[in-house]
């Protein structure tokens, strides 16, 4: 078998594999560790953490939909101090590579979170989640506003300096994704996470009211994969030098390869882990084989390969 260089880089950070958890879909890794060693994937993207303890939204928080699901968690979490004290040491002990996802209600909260993380060792990158759909005020979805997006990333960049790569997580629920992507890159983001969930709703026809406690929720799973592939493709076309973490319904190696070919340097697996705790390992193995089958000797060769000129044949 030919050797395959499966590694990827985001900013100045190297990862041995391009497979990650999606934030909010693996908590802080403990739950999945029973099913496979966390160090065997590219990295754990932890659930977006805020400054304070947060209880999240009322139940019901979930509705299964065709090839997908709606969630309405509302960023339940322990707060940054408990997270740094308990979860980071655990992940380091597991030899997992760690991408910490942060979420705030204000530009200042993001900066505060970045300040607390600046002195923590063992972190590979910071994901700045500016696109959680499950907040009370849609005005708080920074990623729907180019100027607000820029201000958040700028604040985080200034706070942490040039040390840690910053990945901005964006929402597909916008008219012009490329301009928002360009804005956060200009403000200092080293990479982009595409896409967060798509805002949706299910109405219970018995109660004749919205099913979820929070009324709206984020749609995830294979149902949104074509939206994610499109988003990755569009942004990669406009910003080919910016590494993208592609996500949205990746459930197989083939799905992961689609993201890579569209322009993703890595893939995050979220909802698939709900249905199959070993999904990430399965996807990783399948992706390796698919790359080899197509004659690639490195993952990097395949990144954005779907963008090659019309006249060019597949000849790797």
């Amino acid at each position, binding site marked *: 078998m030919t050797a395959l260089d499966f590694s990827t880089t985001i900013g100045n950070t190297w990862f041995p594999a391009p497979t990650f958890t999606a934030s909010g879909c693996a908590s802080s890794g403990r*739950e999945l560790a*029973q*099913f496979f060693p966390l160090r065997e994937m590219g990295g754990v993207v932890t659930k977006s953490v805020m400054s304070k303890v947060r209880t999240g939204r*009322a*139940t019901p*928080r979930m509705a299964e939909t065709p090839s997908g699901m709606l*969630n309405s968690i509302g960023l339940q979490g322990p707060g940054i101090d408990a997270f740094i004290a308990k979860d980071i040491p655990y992940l380091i002990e597991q030899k997992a590579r760690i991408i910490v996802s942060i979420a705030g209600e204000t530009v200042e909260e993001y900066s505060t979170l970045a300040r607390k993380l600046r002195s923590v060792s063992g972190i590979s990158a910071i994901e700045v989640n500016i696109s959680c759909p499950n907040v009370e005020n849609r005005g708080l979805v920074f990623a729907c506003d180019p100027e607000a997006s820029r201000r958040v990333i700028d604040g985080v960049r200034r706070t942490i300096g040039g040390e840690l790569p910053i990945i901005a997580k964006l929402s597909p629920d916008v008219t012009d994704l490329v301009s928002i992507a360009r804005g956060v890159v200009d403000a200092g983001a080293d990479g982009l996470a595409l896409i967060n969930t798509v805002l949706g709703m299910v109405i219970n026809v018995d109660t004749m009211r919205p099913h979820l406690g929070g009324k709206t929720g984020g749609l995830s799973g294979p149902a949104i994969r074509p939206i994610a592939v499109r988003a990755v493709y569009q942004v990669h076309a406009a910003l080919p030098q910016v590494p993208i973490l592609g996500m949205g319904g990746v459930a197989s190696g083939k799905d992961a390869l689609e993201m890579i070919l569209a322009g993703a340097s890595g893939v995050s697996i979220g909802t698939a882990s709900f249905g*199959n705790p070993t999904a990430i390992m399965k996807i990783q193995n399948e992706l390796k084989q698919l790359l080899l089958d197509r004659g690639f000797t490195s993952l990097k060769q395949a990144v954005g390969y779907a963008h090659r000129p019309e006249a060019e044949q597949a000849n790797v």
Partner: protein
Amino acid sequence: MSQINKSAAQLLAPIVSNKKVGQYHQIIINIGDLASLCKPGNFVAINVGGDSSSMILRRAFAISRVSINSTFGGTMELIAAPHGQGSKWLCAQGEGAVLDIVAPLGTAFGIPTEPVPVLLVGGGYGSAPLFGLAEVLNARGCRVDMLLGASTASKIYAPMEGKRAVNSMRIYTEDGSMGQTGRVTDPIAEIIKDLDVAVVYSCGPMQMLSAITKITDSLSVVHQCAVEEAMACGIGVCMTCVLPVESEDGTVSMLRSCIDGPVMDGSKVQWSLVGKQL
């Protein structure tokens, strides 16, 4: 901190038998050595619909009983009601069909160290895990009495062999079509006093668990209940199945019914806050 999901394994397990019992299906699955790790109260998460299914989430079922050394080796029994698309698919799978399962998951019922009198209360097919529990309690030397309730006779799950491990079994239906007319909660207070019950175990709809807690709280009896909340993952990563529960320091937090439950201390669950924003 104890390791989360510490006994759980994912495996492909063949169905040994699938029998219709009233409105329900009794499904027995060959799970080999995993049977020895399953305790009453634990649940199993099963993939449904096959590879090309649009149903992406597992379905959680209470493990009603396990057998370590049946003629098929280690087996697990579960009771399913063919209500939704997923459970209909499962109930349609015949002998030999292979299921992708993750088990055992969740907390188990605590077993008293002394042979004290206990009362088991089941609503609908929520009674299923109580039969396996009754066998364990009976082996511990406890006096086990059981109450089963439902809206109507066809929703009662009470297998003949289930009576072996219990001292008495009383059935209540709201329409009077089986057993006594009324709610299963009606006689609980009296039974607790008459038999000097030390622990009440329950499994069934939330309203029933909440109503039992009102009774047990006023009588200072331990109430261990198995809760049921919609789950996406069953392994603690999705945070959808949460319930408001009071902790040691008096604060209320949203605990996951998949890993901090399904068996919870009824007196700690804040029933009036279920479905509310904290």
